[in-house]
């Protein structure tokens, strides 16, 4: 059942497989709910808090001392743009969480500026997510989440929290900023999970 739009022809972009409802961009759009926080690396700190309240902390020097990875991934924003083959450098969450003792299933990512987003822990492990601090070979711009952001490219990009300052592990799933504002709790681009109930 489809309603044809009179006079609309549309364009094909051959050879590119995008998730449903997405279009390709070569720009790098910025979407943020408020002013961009400007966090100096000497003040930056990243904390993992487990479900029992135990904390693990890294400052910038500690993050830089960890083995970094070069990452090339497609990214998909819920506002419908996709950007292909983006290149990043960062530390795998497998590395950061290697010595963290937890039986939790859920994570709330917290950002400088107050932003939050929820992700299942299993979506952050096994080479699926990073704390990224370079984009395209340059330090990450503040407007794109610098000095460091979460990078979870297999989910809609609002899950890749900018200005990340910590993860809180939990046995129960709470909803983050956009998830309580009508967006999907999980956000799989290939299943087009944009809004609550999709």
């Amino acid at each position, binding site marked *: 059942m489809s309603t044809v739009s009179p*006079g609309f*022809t549309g364009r094909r972009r051959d050879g590119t497989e995008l998730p449903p409802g997405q279009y390709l961009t070569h720009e790098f759009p910025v979407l*943020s*709910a*408020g002013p961009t*926080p400007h966090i100096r690396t000497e003040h930056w700190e990243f904390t993992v808090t487990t479900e029992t309240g135990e904390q693990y902390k890294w400052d910038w020097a500690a993050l830089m001392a960890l083995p970094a990875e070069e990452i090339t991934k497609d990214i998909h924003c819920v506002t*419908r743009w996709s950007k292909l083959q983006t290149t990043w450098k960062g530390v795998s969450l497998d590395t950061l969480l290697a010595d963290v003792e937890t039986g939790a299933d859920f994570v709330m990512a917290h950002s400088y500026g107050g932003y939050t987003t929820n992700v299942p822990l299993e979506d952050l492990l096994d080479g699926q997510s990073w704390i990224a601090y370079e984009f395209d070979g340059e330090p990450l711009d503040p407007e794109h989440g610098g000095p460091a952001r979460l990078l979870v490219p297999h989910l809609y990009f609002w899950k890749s929290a900018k200005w990340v300052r910590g993860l809180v592990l939990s046995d129960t799933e709470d909803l983050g900023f956009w998830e309580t504002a009508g967006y999907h709790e999980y956000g799989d681009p290939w299943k087009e999970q944009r809004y609550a109930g999709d």
Partner: protein
Amino acid sequence: MWQVATVADVRRETATASTIVLEVPDWPGHLAGQHLDVRLTAPDGYRASRSYSIASAWSADTIELTVEKVPDGEVSPYLVDVLKAGDPLEIRGPVGGWFVWKPGQEGPVQLIGGGSGVVPLRSMLQAASGTSTPMRLLYSVRRPESVIYVHDLKELAASDDVDVHLVYTREAPAGEPRVGRIDAELLEQYVYKPTDGATTYVCGPTAFVEAVADLLVAAGHDPARIRTERFG
């Protein structure tokens, strides 16, 4: 769920922007500032969707969208130049729960728009009309002919309800000496003070929003009371 609206009217606002008036059966209502998804389908089944800010306050039977044509765009040129009264248009919404103004929300409201960033702000102006909420609008445009909602804004400016101030970045009308971007001095002059307890909504192109939000924070405004929406 997607539903089919009917285009009641397409009204030209500027050389590159049109307001689309939609009749939507069973519209659940919306908050000022929310979006709508629009989906186009070609005769061979090819589809393209985009999200647009709603330009009007909720009313029982129509919704207005104002669309600025993106050069080389896939959807906006169709909406601005091809779509006409009587056409069907598939929509989904409303969407978004952050860049919104709710009646009864505490404090005055400062609106700051750049270019077509004025669209969701116009929805807020309409929603607040007749309420006791004080609103101010600071609107940055390139030149006089780029002003969207020029008639609405003249009426608002003439009333006591809203303070409207236009900033021209390239070319100003006769009698308006200042040409240039919004700066700290202008913000000091035309926006609520940090102590006034206003919620500030900033909408426009990314560079505009970044610059204005940074200036507001530098002037002592609480980042938590500044809501932003960036177009690309």
